[in-house]
């Protein structure tokens, strides 16, 4: 029986592309995922630098079957998640149709301006209006969407320095989920009663809200057949200097996935400083996968997962 969905990693790295001798095995491109439904429908999640190679792949394997049509879902609009768009070759082919979806922080500046703003002469030699493809932009919120053809999408705001959405795709009874870029919600307000800034109401409410929001995120990816989760840091790194940067510690993410009976989980959005050797070490520590628990693995460029 053919799988309902296939997910392929074209970029697994966070922050900035990092090609080099030490990132050959896992890859140095920034986030880009290809989600293929059994119907052939093509969905792309994030337009990091990995999108360039996906575009080239589509030119070779898909264009001969007819004009390329795709829906691109952006987790958020930080640069490492949109930088591949100008280098997506199908954009320059007449007949290509692209729908771009994503969250925006302010209603008075839509996705077209924020993402399409890369296509201006100051950043790139081609303007948006000069692209041959038809590109449409759709702003998303936290909500549920029927994408047609039996594909249903739920979105959930995560915890990142700008509004960032996790995606939960449900198709033919299978669930594929993304939860990046994000870190656990935490009480940002002062909890030190001796601090002159201390405010009891803020401190108490902060604790409560953080707990509630973390539970909502867990409920969002609960029971997923595949979860791709931000795990940029180890707990030690996170606690020592990276709290508030919007990325998760590996240990926290794995525990959350296990609590919510996720079947398979990809550790994703690797830190640009993380070498292949270090990722191998992390695999030894965290991907032993005892029987009956969530199967944890490290995302690698070119890897394909069937759901």
């Amino acid at each position, binding site marked *: 029986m053919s799988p309902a969905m296939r997910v392929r990693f074209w970029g697994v790295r966070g922050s900035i592309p990092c090609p080099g001798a030490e990132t050959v095995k896992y890859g140095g491109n920034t986030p880009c995922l290809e989600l293929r439904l059994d119907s052939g429908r093509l969905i792309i999640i994030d337009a990091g630098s990995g999108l360039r190679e996906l575009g080239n792949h589509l030119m070779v394997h898909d264009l001969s079957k007819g004009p390329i049509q795709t829906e691109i879902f952006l987790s958020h609009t930080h640069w490492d998640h949109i930088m591949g768009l100008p280098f997506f070759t199908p954009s320059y082919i007449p007949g290509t149709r692209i729908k771009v979806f994503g969250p925006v*922080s302010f209603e008075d500046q839509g996705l077209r301006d924020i993402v399409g703003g890369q296509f201006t002469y100051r950043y790139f030699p081609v303007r948006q209006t000069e692209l041959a493809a038809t590109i449409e932009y759709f702003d998303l919120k936290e909500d549920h969407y029927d994408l047609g053809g039996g594909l249903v999408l739920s979105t959930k*705001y995560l915890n990142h320095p700008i509004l960032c959405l996790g995606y939960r795709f449900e198709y033919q009874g299978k669930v594929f989920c993304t939860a990046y870029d994000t870190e656990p919600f935490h009480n*940002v*307000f*002062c909890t030190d009663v001796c601090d002159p*800034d201390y*405010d009891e109401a803020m401190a108490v*409410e902060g604790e409560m809200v953080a707990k509630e929001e973390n539970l909502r995120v867990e409920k969002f990816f609960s029971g997923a057949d595949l979860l791709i989760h931000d795990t940029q840091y180890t707990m030690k790194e996170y606690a020592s200097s990276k709290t*508030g940067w919007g990325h998760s510690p590996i240990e926290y993410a794995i525990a959350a996935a296990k609590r919510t009976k996720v079947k398979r989980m990809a550790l994703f959005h690797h830190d640009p400083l993380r070498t292949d050797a270090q990722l191998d070490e992390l695999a030894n520590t965290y991907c032993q996968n005892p029987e009956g628990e969530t199967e944890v693995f490290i995302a690698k460029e070119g890897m394909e997962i069937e759901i």
Partner: protein
Amino acid sequence: MTDIPITKKQRLNLIRNYIDRMPSLSTTVNKVLEVCDNPRTSPNALNRVIALDPVLTGQVLKLINSAYYSLPHQISSLSRAIIMLGLNTVKNLALTTAVLESLGGEKSFHSLSMEAFWIHSICVGVTAKALAALKGVPALEREEYFVAGMLHDLGKIPLNNRFVDDYSQSLALAKLEQSSLYRAEDQIMEIDHTFVGGMIAEKWKLSKTIVDSLRYHHQPEAAEEGTRLLVSLVALANMYANTLDFGSAGDNFPEERRLFVLIKEVGVDWRTLSNLSRTVTEEIEKAKIFLQLTQGG
């Protein structure tokens, strides 16, 4: 403004357009810029500076309620909004609103004094919250009372800004007839600030309790049962502020009959109310110091 009389429909259109770009109060804007420009600013300070500006508070709640469609309840707490939206998003929003200062400077406030309006708003917020405590409302729910009180007169801002002459006449009429300002506004413009407040709250998708306190703080009996206590406490806090002249939002003749009804309904005596004046004064002073308004202010 033109001498040709404008229709109610035209007025409503002008108000709707203004609501989309409503500036924060210049009273708080310098502190907003200082807090938001500082990369090391504390979340407590950010929360506090936003809480002291009714427009900014409304904008943050508007953003969170429009972004989180799937939440079962609308959010009326700034602390919750800051944690959920993240510090950066809230800072950016505050900065965007603050840079509209050119539209919202003291001069744009025309017939009303911006600082007196601000003090009145804080007084109603602090009093509503204190009354909520007296009524046994749990601590975590009291911020909503502060927000509702702080925002209750938002509807005056577009009216005062868009219809300068008419607003000035409304203030004069209320003074002449020693009546409540909303009646004078209605007589002159066929629209009053409670109606406009309701428009703002609905357009910004604020919670039902906030919508009702903006719309019904002059007739709390019209509020639904679920929001009645909050609206009544805001109404009483408003009368308290007007009677004791904590700041001014142009409403200097509270309806005495309604005051007695409210005191009875809420179940507090005047002495208890009077005892709140120290708390209110202290809170206003603390806010002024925080905003650095004490020197020359």
